[in-house]
């Protein structure tokens, strides 16, 4: 049984068809890279998964349990939807850190508010510090976001998402807003998160990275899954013409592993 499954996701914005029948499954601990041209619907898919956008139709399962049915779920109470949202985490392209809080406070805010009992306070703080150390920011815990580089901000955002321990952690082009020299540190952190019980979906334009980290790769075009397979299958032996065209335009995945 798949750990996470999406069935027949569809989404229109007015008359624009943005998601057209997206289905896929993931095992626990799997990393799925989603690639595709601009406007192909990658962000919309992640937003639907995270309940930031309402799919027009489709279903979502976690651990075999129905979590979302677009026909019925959205009319549930705010509180029920909030609980469901907690199965997922999302790291945004633009970080979206809270400017009034330090790095540490950013990471601690959500667990503090969600598990509000003062006994946990110490535990939450320690966990937050551990996570910040893990993303290489032990010395920046008391800095405000504007005092951090883009790469550091994104690493704080990653720690902030990790502390809630979501079942599926999503990244939407986590390095696209960064200067080229800062992307490496963030990609390295994401790669280090890979483990047998952390399931991740990464939308990225960094093909080298996708190839290195992903168990499966999904290529989207016009809201549809144009190609799906292991990293090698998709990158080395793409079957679809669109995939070939997309990859050759990028032209930098000649297999030069690190």
């Amino acid at each position, binding site marked *: 049984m798949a750990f996470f499954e999406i069935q027949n996701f569809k989404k229109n914005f007015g008359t624009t068809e943005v998601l057209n029948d997206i289905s896929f499954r993931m095992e626990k601990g799997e990393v799925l890279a989603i690639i595709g041209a601009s406007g192909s619907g990658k962000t919309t898919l992640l937003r639907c998964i995270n309940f930031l956008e309402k799919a027009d139709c489709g279903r979502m399962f976690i651990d075999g349990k129905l979590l979302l049915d677009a026909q019925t779920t959205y009319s549930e109470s705010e509180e029920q939807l909030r609980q469901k949202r907690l199965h997922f985490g999302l790291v945004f392209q633009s970080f979206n*850190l809270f400017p009034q809080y330090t790095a540490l406070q950013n990471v601690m805010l*959500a667990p503090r508010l969600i598990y509000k009992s003062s006994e946990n306070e110490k535990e939450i703080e320690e966990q937050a510090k551990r996570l910040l150390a893990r993303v290489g920011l032990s010395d920046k815990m008391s800095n405000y976001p504007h005092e951090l580089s883009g790469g550091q901000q994104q690493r704080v955002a990653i720690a902030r998402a990790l502390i809630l321990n979501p079942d599926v952690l999503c990244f939407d082009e986590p390095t696209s807003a960064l200067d080229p020299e800062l992307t490496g540190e963030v990609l390295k952190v994401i790669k280090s998160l890979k483990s047998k019980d952390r399931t991740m979906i990464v939308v990225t334009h960094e093909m080298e990275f996708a190839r290195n980290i992903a168990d499966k790769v999904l290529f989207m075009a016009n809201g549809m899954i144009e190609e799906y397979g292991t990293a090698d299958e998709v990158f080395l032996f793409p079957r679809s013409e669109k995939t070939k065209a997309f990859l050759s335009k990028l032209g930098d995945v000649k297999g030069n592993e690190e």
Partner: protein
Amino acid sequence: MFLQVLAQLTEGFYNTLLIFGVTLLVSLPLGLIVAFGSMSKILPIKVITRLFVWIIRGTPLMLQVISVFYLPGLLFYYPMRSRMTAVLVAFIINYAAYFSEIYRGGIESIPRGQYEAGKVLGLTKWQIFYHVILIQVIKRILAPISNEVITLVKDTSLARVIAITEIIMAAEIAVSRYAIVWPLFFTGVFYLLFSGLLTILFDKLEKRFDYIKV
């Protein structure tokens, strides 16, 4: 005579401060309610609130003061007993409308990503507003609020249109009665000190939010 004039000026001074204080105390929170009304998802509430704000902001405060004082008596045979109440009601409504627009601007200027970050972290709507949005809004509106408050200091002089002896009127009476000029200077200095003090206060307040860069 000096003491007599001083007593009159003090009464004017008291009325001015009263209008200023009560108006602020009530219209600052009331404005927030009006702001929520003007951003309401319920269309009739939103339309009515915005229409109301538009009318208040589009007509002179002086006209509003006169209307609040005379209309209840002329239209509903329920005359305003107290001039001061009329002034306060008119000022509160007027300033609540202005503050509501400042609040709305502040709230709407917060990027969508802040709300969405809160949502994906599993926070409730209220938690997002209180722990994420509010302080950023406060930081952004402090400057326009400070302008409005200093305008209010000077607007209090409008109370005289329905014969409330605020400080300028008190000074004018003294000047014309005794042919002396110092009450005018006295009044000018009062305004300068008052608005100067507020400026310093708001500067201090703004400094306290310097650590937030939005």
